[in-house]
Every structure is written in C-alpha cells, then in structure tokens.
C-alpha cells in the first residue's frame, strides 16, 4: 500500500519534477528564521540567532534576544540546531554555459579567435540547465559564468541561480574581462630542442605585443569624441580603464602572476584580480604589496610538480590567509560544470589544511562578492543586504553533514528538487526503498 501511494505521488510529481523546477516568485511575506547558528560570512558566528527578511532584504540578522519586533506577521521557520549561511558564490564557472561536456552542441564557453573582449557570457547563460538545481541544493546560490580560451576570452557576469531567463538572473552584468595570460615557455619534454623552444618563445612575445597594442589603443579609443567609428573590441575594454570592470588575469605560475599584474597595471587597468594562481605561494609578498585579489582555482587538484608537497594545493588558501591576501575559491578544472556543486567542500578542505571554518566560509561568500563587486548586496548576512541564504542541518562545508533544508535567493524560497532527486524517487519506488 505504501508503495502504491508513493508511486502515485511520484507519477503526479513527474510532470513537474522531470523539468527544471519553476523559479519562485518574489517574496510576498516576511520570513523569520529562529534558533539557527548564524554564520554571517565575515567571520562572525551568532549562536541562537534570529534572521528576518522582507521583500528580499534582511531586516534583522543577529542574536535571537535582540529581535524584538512582533513575530505575528512573519512566516516563522524554527531552525533550532541548524546552521545558517549566506548563499555560496561560485566565481569563474562554466555553469549555464555547458550542459554536457562531450557534446559540442551543448558547450558555449569558448569563442574562436584570440581576442574576444566583446563577447559576453551572460547571453549564453542557460537558466534551464539541468545542472543548476543540483548545484543549488548544496548551497551555491550565485555564480559568475565566465568565458574561456584565447587570450581575451570575453566578459563574465554575476547571476543568481533561480531565474526564468538570463535577464531575470543577472545580478551584475559584464562585471569583468578575462585575460588568459600566455604561459611562460619551458621545455615540454626532454626531446624538445632549443629551436622549438625559441619558436614558442617568439610566438609568446608576439601575443604579448598584440595585447599591449590592443590595450593601448583601447585606452586611447575611449577618449575619442562621440561620432567615432564603432569598434566593438576597443569599446568593450573601456571598463577596465575606468574601473567599472575588473580585469581577471588567469595565471598559475608565480612568475607569470607577477608579469601579468605588472602588465595590467602598467597599461592602466584599474581593478585586477588573479585567477587560477596555483603557484601563488611563490609570490605571496607581491600579491599583498600590490593589493591583488586572488581567485584560487579548485584546490582539489594534484600538486603541479612531483616534488611539491602532497598538500600544496590544499594548503594554498591558508598560505594566502596568513599573508593577508584577499582570496576566494572556485571550481575550475576537469568536469567543472557538474562538479561545481562541491564548492562548499573545497572550502572544507581549506579548513582541513589550515583555515578556520569561518575564514573558509568567507572565501566562498564575502570575498567572492567583494572581488566581483556585488558585496553591497551579497556575501554576508547583515541587515539591509539581500536575503540570499542557506539553511543546513549540519556543517555546510563538510559533506558528512552538509544537508540543505531551505535556501532563499533575494528572499524567495527556492526549490531544492532537481532531475536527480526526481530520478532518485522514481527508482527508489521501483524497489520499494
């Protein structure tokens, strides 16, 4: 009988759940969450907290004792024993740009050519991706779809993950340009001779000259009077010179990081951040002295050299923290689109290798918001900011305890269902589990 009932439930659910869940309409009623341990995102932890929000904005976030308003008008959620966090923010991702990695038709992350500063990831961001709901249920609520490849890959945007379409999803359009710094030339294998090395070195020098030329002309172009002949490439770079767009420098090797940052600053980029930065441990002082923010690519990675410490990738966040460098964590790498639901656990590993839990949380909430320029609204749970938050039955950063019970984006309670939970229910009922 129970099986039959479940089957009936499943079959009625099929029609809706087989699809990406419907986005939730704007918050219509104030919500009050009580009893949870509040992790503000800036290092502060408030046990037995109250968090209230209305029309998508936090109206209170602090100790329960301090919440004195009348609870009558609120939908109240008793979250005693649960943990409350800002929605996690996933920087530098292909989420929404790629559906199935091996099927070219479903991949929109890399435009042809080397210099594409004018292309925009935002318009390819697919709100109907089957992957999005599976990422949300682990606490990731904001993301930065980012183009890949070439030298100048194009522009990223910041989106929230519960939307009807990309216009609806946008949090900050075209927040930055992405420059893949040409890798320094080393021998690829013991058989590579000096001539081949030299050829690659020359090719790299040409690329750097082209870039320098482009940046110089773009900086001049933006000062031309109206009526100029329109040039999409040059026009799209204006933002990095007036500070309205961040120039993200994708580089891993220590010397490349120094080279890239100095290049960008010399040519007039106002805001720069380094992405990847797997060897940032080599240049900690440089990063600190130049006030460069870092987006550390997936630390669940192998050390770059055989003799590197086995835990070098794992401990990089703690090294950056100790050096006082602002950093956040991303999930770039193999199988990143579907795998990005593990962002919280990346932060967990950083705790295992030296960060405090709150420092690690900051690296997936506040600092990415700061680096992407959305920290006025997102990244911490403080009065006045967006009610974009996650409630988990246990520690969100540990897969052993991560169990999201509710999630809100701009005050909207979002669905935690996905194609995968649908298939789980369908086949569990097949076996009567």
């Amino acid at each position, binding site marked *: 009988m129970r099986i039959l009932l479940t089957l009936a439930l499943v079959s009625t659910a099929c029609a809706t759940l087989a699809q990406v869940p419907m986005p939730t309409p704007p918050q219509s009623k104030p919500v009050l969450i009580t009893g949870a341990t509040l992790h503000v995102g800036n290092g502060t932890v408030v046990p037995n907290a109250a968090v209230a929000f209305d029309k998508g904005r936090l109206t209170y976030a602090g100790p329960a004792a301090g919440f004195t308003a009348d609870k009558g008008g609120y939908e109240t959620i008793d979250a005693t024993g649960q943990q409350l966090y800002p929605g996690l923010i996933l920087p530098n991702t292909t989420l929404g740009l790629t559906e199935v990695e091996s099927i070219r038709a479903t991949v929109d992350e890399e435009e042809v050519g080397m210099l594409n500063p004018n292309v925009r990831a935002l318009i390819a961001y697919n709100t109907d991706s089957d*992957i999005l709901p599976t990422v949300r249920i682990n606490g990731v609520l904001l993301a930065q779809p980012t183009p890949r490849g070439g030298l100048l890959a194009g522009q990223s945007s910041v989106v929230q993950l519960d939307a009807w379409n990309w216009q609806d999803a946008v949090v900050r359009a075209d927040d930055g340009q992405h420059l893949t710094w040409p890798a320094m030339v080393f021998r690829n*294998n*013991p058989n590579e001779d000096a001539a081949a090395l030299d050829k690659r070195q020359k090719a790299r020098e040409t690329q750097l000259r082209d870039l320098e030329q482009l940046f110089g002309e773009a900086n001049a172009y933006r000062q031309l009077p109206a009526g100029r002949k329109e040039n999409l490439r040059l026009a799209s770079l204006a933002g990095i010179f007036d500070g309205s767009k961040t120039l993200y420098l994708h580089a891993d090797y220590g010397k490349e990081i120094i080279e890239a940052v100095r290049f960008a600053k010399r040519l007039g980029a106002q805001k720069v951040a380094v992405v990847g930065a797997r060897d940032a441990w080599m240049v900690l002082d440089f990063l600190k002295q130049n006030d460069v923010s870092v987006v550390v690519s997936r630390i669940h990675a192998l*050390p770059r050299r055989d*003799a590197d410490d086995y835990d070098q990738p794992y401990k990089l966040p703690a090294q950056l923290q100790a050096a006082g460098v602002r950093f956040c964590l991303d999930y770039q790498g193999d199988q990143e*689109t579907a795998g990005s639901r593990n962002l919280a656990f990346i932060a967990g*590993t950083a705790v295992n290798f030296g960060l405090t839990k709150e420092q690690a949380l900051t690296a997936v909430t506040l600092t990415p918001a700061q680096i992407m320029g959305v920290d006025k609204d997102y990244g911490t749970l403080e009065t006045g900011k967006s009610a974009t938050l996650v409630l988990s039955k246990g520690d969100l950063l540990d*897969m052993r305890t991560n169990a999201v019970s509710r999630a809100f984006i701009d005050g909207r309670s979002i669905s935690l269902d996905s194609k*995968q939970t649908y298939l789980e229910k369908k086949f569990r009922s097949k076996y009567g*589990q």
Partner: protein
Amino acid sequence: MKNSYQPLPLVAVLAMLGTAAAAQPGTFPRNGVYDQRPGVFAFTHATLFTDYKTKISDATLLIRDGKVVAAGPAGAVKIPAGAVVQDVRGKFIYPGFVDVYTSYGVPEIPAAPRQGRRAGPQFDSQKTGAYSWNQAIHPEVNAAEQFKINNDQATAYRALGFGAVLTQQADGIMRGTAALVSLNTNRREQEVMLLERAASGLSFDKGSSTQDYPGSLMGSIALLRQTYLDAQWNQRSPGRERNLSLQALSQQKALPAIFQVSDKLSALRADKLGDEAGQQYIIKGRGDEYQRLDDLKKTGAAFVLPLNFPDAYDVADVYDALRIPLEDLKHWELAPANAARLSQAGVPFVLTTADLKDKKKFLPNLRKAGQYGLSETAALQALTDTPARLLRAQDRIGALKPGMEANFIVCSAHLLADDNVLLDNWVQGERYQLSTVPADYRGVYSLNIGSQPEGRFLIQGKPEAPELKIVPTAGDTLRGNLTVTSDLATVVFGPKSKKKPEAGAAPAAEGSVRLSGYYTQEGRVFQGDGLLADGTPVKWRAARLEEATRAAKRDSAKVVPPPVLGNVIFPFAAYGRAAVPSQQPTLIKNATVWTSEAAGKLENTDVLLENGKITKIGKNLSLPKGGRSIDGTGKHLAPGIIDEHSHLAISGGVNEGTQAVTSEVRIGDVVDNEDVGIYRDLAGGVVAAQLLHGSANPIGGQSALVKMRWGATPEDMKIGEAPGFIKFALGENVKQSNWGELNVLRFPQTRMGTEQVFVDAFTRAKEYEQEWKAWNKLGKGKQKKGEAPRRDLELEALVEILNRQRFITCHSYVQSEINMLLNVADRLGFKVNTFTHILEGYKVADKMKAHGANASTFSDWWAYKNEVKDAIPYNAAIMTRAGLNVAINSDDAEMSRRLNQEAAKTVKYGGLTEEEALRLVTINPAKMLHLDARMGSIKEGKDADVVLWSDNPLSIYAHPEYTFVDGREMFSLAADAALRADMQKERQRLVQAMLTAKQGGAPTQAAPGKARGLWHCDTIGEEKELAK
C-alpha cells in the same frame, strides 16, 4: 635467468671459417696489377694487453695477413725475416674495441609519427610479401643484406678505438638479425663481415610501423609474447601458414638477442618476457641501471651501457629550477657512476657509443666513468672481451691471441690516463693512424744567443702545448712562443711590457727576437739562427740541463679525487627513500577503530600490527619487544582504502584500444612503481588498487592488483596470489563516438555491434577450449602425428573467464548495455564480476543482483558526456539498499586521494550510515576484488593495511596521520616532513653542484618537462585526454 656466456656453437665456428676464407683475395676481379703484400708486422717493446686482464711488459706482437701470429714477451716471440718491425717502446697495445649496438653501414629508418586518435585507423600491415601480420615484427630483416661500408662512420668509430661493431637496423619490435663487421674500409663488404648473423635485435618500440597495433607498451609486450608462440606453432605446423617472419624468428632463436629498452623498468620487463620465451636477452639500457641494481643483477642479463651523461641543467632561477624532477637532478650526478656500480656488483656489461649525440664524447666520458670508480680492467673488459663473448666471437675478436683478427690499438699511455692518446688503430692488420705522440721537449735549457750572457730557456705546460719562458741573466723573465714541428723549432719572444708605448713617446727600444732552428734528440739541443729585434743576425743554442720540474709533471698528471655522490633512493623519484620502511611491531593505542566488520566501530581500542598482519585488537594491549606505540587518542583507525578503479602507476599507455578485443594485454606487464601518485595515494589513505586497462574497446586488457608499496619493484607491488581481472567496456568509448570523424571504421561503432563483439569472442573462446580439450585427450602417438592447435593468448584469457579463473570489471553507464551484457553472460555462461562506473546501476539494480554482479561507482560525477545524463549521486545508496555489494572508486589520480570524502557523500546523498559509507572504499572493494579474506577490514589475521585519521574518516576535516601497508609506515605526517626536508637539502646540494659545473664551463641544458601522463579510461596512446 641462465648464464649469458655460452660456449661457441658449431654453427658459429663454421660461419667463422667461411668468412675467414672470404678474407683472401677471393672472387673479385681486379683493375691493374695485384698488390698483395706480405703483411707481416712486428711490434716490439710494447706494453701489451693480450686480453683485458693479461698485461705483458716489453712484449712483441706479430701479425700476418690480418691475423695475430704471436703475442708474448720479447724473448718468446721470434720475429721472422721480412717482418716490418716497429719499436713501440713506452706505448700500450690493447685489443680493438667492439661496439655491439650500432647501425653502422645500415640505412636508417625514421620512426613513424605518433598520431593517436587524430589519424584514421590502420588495421593491417602495409608491408608486401608473406610476412607477419604486424608491421613492427620483421625478424626477416638481415643487416648483412643491407650493409654497405661507410667510410665516415667507420672513421668515427675507429677514432674511438673500435675495431669491430655489431650492426643492425634498429627499427621495430622484432628487428631481425645483426651482423658483426670489422671497421676496415680498405676491403669489401664480404671481407669485413665477420659474422653475418651474429645476433638478433628487439625492442618495445614499433618504430617506423604505421599500423595501429600495438598502441601501448603492454601491447608491444603482448605482441612479442604471442609472436614467440606463433613461431613455435608455425614450426610445428608449417603447412598452415607460409610465414616468412615466423620462419626467420625460429631460425634465429639460438642467436644472442639484444633487447633495447628505454629505462631500467623496461629492462626488468624485457627480462621477464625473455624468461617466458626461453630467451636470455642482452639488454641495451639507458644508463640508469644503477637505480635498480640488485633487481637487474637478478635478471642474469648482460647489459649494453651507453655513456651519454646528461649535461647539467640550467638552475639559475629559483622557481624555474623547481621544474626539474629530483630524479633528473640526481641522474646528472650519478650517471657517470653507472658502469662502475654494475662492475662492482658483478653485473656483466659492455659499453656502447649508442645514444651519444656527439660520439667524440665517448672517450672523455669513459675517462669520467673511470674517475667515478670504473677500473681500467673493467672498462677494457667491457670494450673487448665481454662484447666478443656475448657475440660468441671471442675466438676472433676481443683479445690478441694467435689466429685472431689483428684488431688492436696503440696508445701513448694507459687506457684511462688523462693524457692517453690513441695513436694507431689496426683493423684486420691494416693501420689507421689516428694521431701522433707529441714529442716532449719540456725541461730547463741553457740558452745562448749570439754573444749575450747565458740565460735559461724553460719549456713547461703540456707536451702538446708547450709554454716557453726566457730567463735572462739579468732582468725580468719573458714569456715566449715556441712551436716545434718534426723537431723544427720557431721561437719568438719580446719585451715584457704588453703596454703600448704612450702616444708621442719614443718607440720601445726592443722589439721581438725571432729564432729558428732544429732539435737533436741525441744531444737534446735546439740550435739555429735568428734575428734580434734590431735585425742583427745571431746564432742560438739551447741545451737541456734537466727534465721538467716535478711540479710541472705533477700538474700534468693531476689526480681527480673520486666524487662524493648522493644516495640512490627507492623509488628513484621525489619522495623516494634510501630504504623501504620496516615492519616494526606497532601498537596503535586508544583509537576509535572502524572495523568494516560486524563488530562495527570500537571506541578506545588498541590495534597491534606485527609482521605485516593485524595480530590483536583489544583494550590495554601490551607492546611487544622492539615495537613502538602510537597514541590514537581522539583519532580514528580505519582499514586502508582500496581503489577499485585506478589508472595510476602504469607505463606506456593505459589503452590498447587498437582492436575490439585485446584480452592478451596485461597491465601487470607495465606497472610503474615510480609514479608519485602512489605516494600521494598513501597520503590520502589508499593502500591498494586495481590498475585497470582503459575503456577504448569492448574487451580490454588484464588488470594488475597492487598495494601501494612505495619503493618496491613493480613485481613486488603486485598482490601475491591475487586473482586475475580484466577490463571490459561498453558505450560511447567503445563505439568511439567522441573520437572525431576519422575514427568511424573500427567495429563496433554502435551498442548493437558491441553485443556482437562479446558474443563472437566468447563463442570463439569456447571453441578454442574444446579444440584444446580434444587435443589433450589424444594419446602421445596421435599427438605426434597430428598438429596441435595454435595457442592464442587472447582467447586463453577469455577461457579463464568462462572457468571463473578471471573476473570481469566492466566499464558501463546506461541500462540498455548493462542488461545486454548480463544477457550475453547468462547465455554464454560467464559472470560479470563487477560493473564499474555503472552510473545507471540504480535503474537495473535488481537485474544485477540476480546475476550476482558487484557495482563500483562514482559518488557524484555526471553530465560529462551523453551517456551520463541520467547519473545521480543517490546511485550508490540505492544499489546498496537493493542488496548489491557497492564500492566507490576514483578512475582519477586526484580523487583517489580523497576517496574517504567520496564515500562520505553517500551519507548525504541517499542516507547510508557512516559505517556503510566507509565500507564502500574498504571491505566492499576488497570483496569485489576477491581480496576480502586478507584485506579491507580491521580483523585479527588480516593484512596490516590501516590508516590513522586525524578525525572521523568520513569528514572533510580528516586527513591520514599514518598510513600502514603490510605493517610498514608508508606514510606519516612526520615522515613526510622529513622526506620534504631531505629532498630540499638534496636538491640544494645538486643545484649548487650544477652551478659550480656551469661556472667551470660545463654545458647546461634547459629544464626538461615531465612526460608522465595522467591516465583515464579513454586515454589513447600517450595523449593526455581527460574525459571519463
């Protein structure tokens, strides 16, 4: 492992007689008058080595007609009338050198470009003729048929002291026969050829073959193994196939076989193959043999060692230098000691000029090997006696005994002396002059010039570059310039000041003095005429008063102290150790023990590890003598993790996907014990893994089950008595759907075809088994008359599966194909032991359960290709609840070291208990690998493969503090810190040594890249592909 020195077989003796006859004027027409000379030479008063260990002072060597007639003490050799006598007093005569690894006079064949999956397939050989099906198997090639005397090459070899070389066409896997030729260029091919079939050549490299198979190192090994069997079959049943390659192979079975390998691991592989084939190969190595000396000694093989010592690396930049792997830094230092170490260990070896880009480095490098401990006797043996014996030509070359070829070198000093100069190289009784001894004029002379007061005339420096000083009776010592050619001397010396006269000042009163004259040995006097600076003609005379001062002599014979060298570490890689950790009894006290047994989780419990086993589990256990205890308070002891699906530690490719069925290839042939991934796995709590073939074809290769015995040999990493496994695969990889438009020809291209591959393969396997059963039933008499079936290693592996002696791990994704294979298996009577990946296992868990299959899956991978669109992270939990034995695996070197976390996800996704979750990476994979009787849980009597975690092992906050394998502490935080410090120190020492070398003028090279691949299921060839 038999002795490689063999008595000279009759065949070889006959062959020798044949060629000896050909050395006579023979069959050739002549243009002009005959110029046959007596060719009798006597070398007297020599220091003569009649062989590498027999030195005769004041000896006479007598040769005639290109052969040695006599060699012995002056009194014992009678010089016949008509001999040309050469007094070689003070000089050394050695037997001419022999190089067994050359392609002298044989056309070079360029290797085919490696194209991987970017080119279309080529299934068949492109060679015409009734030869092997495989283009890389060409034992029918005979160097003797291709050989043409090459003056330039011969001159280069002779300049190094060689008198004879073995030459072969060094291309392909079975390369054919090599010819032994002398380096005489004044005669014809027929006359210089000493043995036309002296050896055969082999390698694992398919060279110029453009055919797909073999596409991996294990494929090369399998091909060799099968080809040896095929040759036997072909010999027994010649009527079945007229196969010229197999015929040739059978004919050369008795020849010495020289196997070229790329490194010491492949040397071990080649020897193992040779043991199976009944061949003791001579192994041409890379020069890294010292890194596995004990194991290579056990092979019983003789080694052919190159002397190409790497240049120092450019280590000027702190960070760029980090790119250079530790093993490369160390090899730079240790390579020159290789020959010495083999010699000291008693491993027979010869030296070759092969692999040296600049062959002129051979003699300097030989001397360098001497400085690193190679004795002159050993060096000489390796260049003369050993190569001659290896080629069974010790009666013709390699020594100077009556009847042997008159191949010898005349040197100015003893062989490894710094100032030794090779003067003459005599080949088959013909002289090739290499250089002359510079006369030594050094000494102190009285100097008289005209009527000037007597001064001194000092000749110092080296004999070949004398330095002149003039010491007048009064005034400063002057430097002069002396050149002497054929005792004719020219001297110039001038005023001391090198300053130009200041502008306007009067020109210097003195210019240069120029003297010309000649030297007479008898009086040891220079004399002649000259002109003073002002043009006054003078007579001059310089008479020797004494020989060079002692200091000058000492300078020219400076002894270089033997270098101080770093340790050889095991493995020879980053994080290698000087010795593998011991099995010291270890008591882990007061830990939370996750048993993965019915006992569950035990709090405050002690576990004792002794002799590689878990011997006691309990409270307050006492520590045995000699043991040590580890405080486990607050920590968690868990069974070591077993990764059911790994592609770590594999050399030369993970896929032999060139054919649909490749059950003959074996990962066990190509285990790479130096992959740093092994150490990293240990740091992640992994103690064992199934190393699987990839998923490029429906029936892949055989697995290796290994423990992470970091530092052990590849063979010793394997789990003893582990059952055999094999990889099968289904779906997109098998049908090559993500391989581009060129790869649309290999069957199957659909799931429909995939089924037929399995049905066909097992149908053939059954017939094969029947065929052999029928044959084995026949009486001996009938067997004698009949023809035995051909042994087919591909089918034998499938027969093992049918007989439950080998177990399948099948790469699989979607339910249709899983059902298909279950169906085929049930129909044809075999079991699918494990479905791996099995991301749609949750859809067919009931059918898998009915069949008895295990499931080994990923925790949360999906959406990386079309066939994983329906993958869900609840899969492991649903299958577990459906009653299947389920494991979580990695298929990935990075995830492998976090498998505890992947297991933990099944608590979150699907609600397994924590203990159930840990079982997914411990006892459950042990069960599906049939290793659970000894591994996978903490139980008395089981292998001491345990991990002490800092926290609950399912927590992201847990990391291993200790990892034990067989009771050995293979990883611990403290040991890791010590290894890092040691490595840092060693690196710093070597970097400083390289900087010093560079300052000393040594050439340097740019930091090399690392060529190790990270394999995944569908990695083809050496490409670095990442999709799963």
